[in-house]
């Protein structure tokens, strides 16, 4: 009798775990919240649409960083390398007579993914501080290249004279940012669907395994290096999409797109929201960028002081960011 009871509870516990795994990838009503908010913002805050488009594209950038950082546990300081590659690809195309936005976006994505693949082959062989340094070196190398090749990239002054054509030949990029906002929102939504699908797939689960315990993943025969390279490439592609989006909607690309500060700030935005949760980007980026917009009268350098303080405070007092705090409050 006792064993029967045990077996039964065991089965139940097992069912519970299976249910939990099965439920993971089903849509939860709360997941609609970012999209409802974004649509509401489109209707209610028409004067903030240019900022809104920037926020949406930056959410995509932070989401791409979350894939490598939060899921695969690859700590990188060079994610702007891919963001900048995408931005410069789309920008250079548009400045040289090919302003079709969708193909420009795809070109930026593919170029960034290629750079991600090539650099990942080298960078991912190392771990820890060395890996961090290598990612930084890749970004600095591209920054230097963009700076030197000023005949193509405009160097220090930034890329001038981008002409982006209407989307499908119908929707012009207007001054008020209507087209830009909707364009960014749709691209972000599609990328989010893909990223969501990815992290809940067996591939995504194995990435979490690699993050949590590399040795065990090696021991059970998972191709650790190949999986890290694949997610690094995919994430680089998404970062390139984000860069191309910002380049097309603001019609400008500068050296700052490849700078270390941007790598740092995207990390902060992600951390404020919460890492490895897929939604951290949706919380952290708007919080950061709206605060930055509100406090724009503060000198940028002093703004960095408060941001730095916030980073330290999050690490010391609020690990897991906003989403981590909510989880802790609910338990």
């Amino acid at each position, binding site marked *: 009798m006792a064993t029967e009871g045990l077996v039964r509870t065991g089965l139940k516990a097992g069912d519970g775990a299976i249910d939990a795994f099965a439920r993971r990838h089903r849509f939860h009503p709360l997941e609609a919240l970012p999209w409802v908010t974004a649509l509401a913002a489109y209707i209610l805050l028409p004067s903030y649409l240019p900022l809104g488009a920037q926020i949406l594209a930056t959410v995509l950038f932070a989401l791409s960083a979350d894939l490598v950082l939060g899921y695969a546990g690859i700590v990188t300081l060079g994610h702007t390398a891919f963001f900048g590659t995408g931005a410069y690809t789309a920008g250079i195309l548009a400045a040289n007579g090919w302003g079709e936005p969708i193909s420009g976006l795809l070109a930026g994505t593919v170029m960034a993914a290629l750079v991600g693949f090539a650099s990942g082959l080298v960078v991912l*062989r*190392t771990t820890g501080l060395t890996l961090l*340094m290598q990612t930084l070196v890749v970004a600095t190398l591209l920054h230097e290249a963009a700076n030197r090749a000023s005949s193509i990239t405009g160097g220090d002054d930034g890329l001038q004279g981008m002409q982006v054509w209407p989307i499908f030949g119908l929707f012009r990029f207007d001054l008020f940012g209507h087209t830009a906002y909707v364009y960014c929102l749709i691209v972000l939504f599609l990328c989010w669907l893909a990223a969501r699908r990815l992290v809940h797939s067996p591939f995504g689960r194995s990435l979490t395994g690699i993050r949590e315990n590399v040795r065990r993943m090696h021991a059970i025969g998972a191709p650790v290096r190949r999986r890290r390279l694949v997610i690094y490439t995919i994430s680089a592609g998404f970062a390139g999409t984000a860069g191309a989006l910002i380049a097309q909607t603001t019609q400008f690309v500068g050296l700052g797109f490849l700078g270390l500060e941007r790598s740092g700030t995207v990390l902060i935005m992600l951390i404020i929201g919460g890492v490895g949760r897929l939604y951290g980007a949706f919380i952290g980026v708007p919080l950061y960028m709206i605060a930055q917009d509100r406090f724009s009268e503060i000198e940028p350098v002093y703004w960095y*002081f408060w941001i730095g303080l916030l980073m330290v405070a999050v690490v010391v007092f609020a690990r897991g960011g906003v989403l981590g705090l909510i989880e802790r409050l609910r338990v």
Partner: protein
Amino acid sequence: MSFDEAISAAVSIGFHGLAFAMVLYLISVGLSVTMGLMGFVNLAHGVFAMLGGYIVTSVMSRAGVPFVPALAAAAIATAVGSVVVERLLYRRLYGGDELDQVLLTMGLIFMSVAAVTFFWGPNPQPIRPPGWLSGEVDLGVRSFPAFRSFLILCGAALVTALWLGLERARVGIRIRAAVDNLRMAQSVGINTPGLFTLTFALGSGLAGLGGGLGADLLAISPSYALDNLVYFLIVVAVGGLGSIRGPFVAAMLLGITDTGFKYLLPELGAFFIYALTMALLLWRPKGLFGRA
């Protein structure tokens, strides 16, 4: 280019490269040891070098303190300041998540940029060498700038003292034991938390000294810690984490290559150095002197 000119250029590159290498090594060696000892990814290490530079330049120009006491003050002040940071913040994250360490230290860098701009303004701080170090020293064959010669001599003396200390002194032996095998060191009764703090203070003090000595090579400006981060990381990663001599070789390589390119091919310098770094680490992912 004639033969004489080539020799002269080579001597110049060697001299200035050596000076740059000394600065890089003094600043980075502490990072390598603390990284090897505690596994702590301290991106904010350059902040201590920057503070050292600011202390030296401002104590000299505002209070009229001579150069050598100013250097000593910079080393002591950064060492003491680093102990406060270590006790308050870093200690919480030893053995913890790498990402947390990166965030904490990036946060400190951002704060330092703003704080330094607030106190000293956005412009680089010039360093005025004292009278006995301005001008040139004549070594018979040719003359060299006195300030850089002093920098090289100082660096060489410090490096010798550091190596001898780590080799012979009891503290040095304990540090090496803890780097080699932390658990074993703890079980034979070495007070590792105390050792951590001491090493950290020593490394930061050296960085402060390096920042002050090298103020004319690495300009003292608010973005110092961000701009030079990649250099310090290259020295540490190529040299091998936890190694004392590895970073010296790496600093020499980097210092001389960088200077050489600046003289001969200024457009390609950065590319070559970064490509070389990646190639070296592809060949030896643990660095030249890192343990496999």
